[in-house]
């Protein structure tokens, strides 16, 4: 982080994103009157910071709430309570201008590069569209900029007038990254952005993201279920389970000295690409990931975080 070269004058040690006590729940309704019969407690008391040039990885299994955190930050879901500050400015209930500025500076890259590109738009239009929305120049200028973006993700500018169907999955994901870069973002939220790619392509796309981060001091919220990928590219890691962050800390501490039982379990179940480290013990358990659905009158018990080291925190278990 410290050696990140940047052209920005922003203070690199001040958090770019500050999330505090974020709670997002979804009502489950049934019957004619749409009575609330339960709630999905998707995100509970989630707090973290991201500083410029840093990658925070949010890891966990399906249904743990990691994508809802991302969608809440991007204002795609409405949180029940909590605070999301971007560059010091509160976004929840914030002014339209603040939200617009945030939307320009924060970009998202999704998992499926097949459904996140419009099949009827050329690559040039896909890349120019966000710049047009924010009125960043004439069409000729924007087209030149689109060509630069494409070159930055290692695709030849001749591809500008092609349609998405002409590209492979890895190439499409690079186009999605190029689109995210179009507005020169300070924050990229990557939601399982490499999960659907072949492993050699995955490595290239991750290296590209890391390069871009170093070049422009971009903060990355990297959402993933893949602990091995996270180990490679994250500065800090937050482990989510049933809507809560159960452990958060610098990557090295979380991976070498995991404190929470769930983190340990997650780390121990990952297949390691080394036959010499094949597990000797059989785990014939059948326990499942519990559901986050609760009755409407459910009162959640708050559990505090305990500090392990200046950079490592773990949720108290009851």
């Amino acid at each position, binding site marked *: 982080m410290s050696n990140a070269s940047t052209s920005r004058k922003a203070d690199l040690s001040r958090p770019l994103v500050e999330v505090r006590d974020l709670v997002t729940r979804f009502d489950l309704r049934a019957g004619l009157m749409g009575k609330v019969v339960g709630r999905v407690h998707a995100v509970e008391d989630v707090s973290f910071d991201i500083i410029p040039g840093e990658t925070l990885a949010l890891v966990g299994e399906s249904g743990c709430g990691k994508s809802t955190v991302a969608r809440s930050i991007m204002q795609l879901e409405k949180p029940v309570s909590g605070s999301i500050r971007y560059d010091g400015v509160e976004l929840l209930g914030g002014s339209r201008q603040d939200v617009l500025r945030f939307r320009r500076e924060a970009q998202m890259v999704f998992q499926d590069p097949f459904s996140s590109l419009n099949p009827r738009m050329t690559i040039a239009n896909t890349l120019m569209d966000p710049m047009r929305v924010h009125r960043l120049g004439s069409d000729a200028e924007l087209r030149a900029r689109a060509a630069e973006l494409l070159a930055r993700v290692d695709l030849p500018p001749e591809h500008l007038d092609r349609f998405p169907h002409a590209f492979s999955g*890895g190439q499409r994901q690079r186009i999605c990254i190029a689109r995210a870069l179009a507005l020169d973002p300070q924050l990229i939220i990557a939601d399982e952005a490499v999960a659907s790619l072949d492993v*050699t392509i995955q490595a290239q796309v991750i290296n590209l993201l890391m390069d871009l981060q170093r070049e422009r001091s971009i903060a990355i919220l990297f959402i993933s279920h893949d602990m091995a990928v996270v180990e*490679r590219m994250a500065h800090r890691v937050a482990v989510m389970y049933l809507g809560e962050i159960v452990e958060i800390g610098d990557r090295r501490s979380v991976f070498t000295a995991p404190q929470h039982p769930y983190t340990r379990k*997650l780390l121990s179940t990952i297949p390691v*690409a080394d036959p010499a*480290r094949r597990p000797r013990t059989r785990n014939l358990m*059948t326990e499942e990931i519990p559901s986050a659905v609760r009755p409407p009158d459910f009162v959640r018990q708050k559990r505090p975080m305990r500090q392990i080291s200046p950079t490592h925190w773990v949720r108290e278990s009851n």
Partner: protein
Amino acid sequence: MPVPADPSPTATAFEDDTILSVEDLRVSFALDRRRTFEAVRGVSFAIRRGETLALVGESGSGKSVTAMTVMRLTEHDGARIAGGRIRMRMKSGVIEEITTLPEARVERLRGAEISIVFQDPMSSLNPVFRVGDQIAEGIIRHQGKSVPAARSIALNMLKLVRVPDAERRMDHYPHQLSGGMRQRVMIAMALACRPSLMILDEPTTALDVTIQAQILDLVRALQQEIGMSVLFITHDMGVVAEIADRVCVMLKGEIVESGTVDEIFNHARHGYTQALIAAVPRLGSMTDQDAPEPFPVVAYSAEETPA
């Protein structure tokens, strides 16, 4: 380009402990009247009794087409076996040539001699039938059992794959089960007629990692308990390292390298295998480092080309 590391498959002899032998298999799909696309181009491998062979490769490498062809399932998608042999040792001891078997005989073979588990259990299970009945169906059909006898075998199968509360689960519909439980049901169904070879085509790809670990452990335990052979199709080198005895690496319809799991991971000879292994993040490789680290780039120019 292919490295013939495996001495057995090119020989035409069918050794005593061999269950399945695939020789110089070619499968092509008709693109239109004139053009064909060869998805499998001269693939050879053999599986021994009780052995797990992993067929690994990236998307489009032909690994699934190879596996499906062993069960003669690709013809329905317009594929044609353009050459080669697939020989299998039946439970009776007879060695059958699968490529030329009439469809009626192939149907009797599916489930009874070879079974397959697919990636997505939700689309492989019929949503309108109870899972117990779905498992029993194959037993009635292949083994001619009565309905109550088949149901009791089905129940035992559910217990074998460690489905908790199996009696009650028999009467559940697929949508009432989690992804991991559905995959257990699929494995129970595949095991029901005691096949000598089970093909698992990306069986854990759609599952969470803690559930994946359970399924992999289950497959290994079952193999020890009933001694069947497994052909495991995956793109995940981590899974390969955990489960395989031997590995065939596929690229663009060919096996470019094959060997024991140790040979492949520690002494890979083919450039593509080396690139594949370099690109896999190995958990624990970053223990001494604070900062993130890019992946080492092992250049291999089988680059993606726009279709």
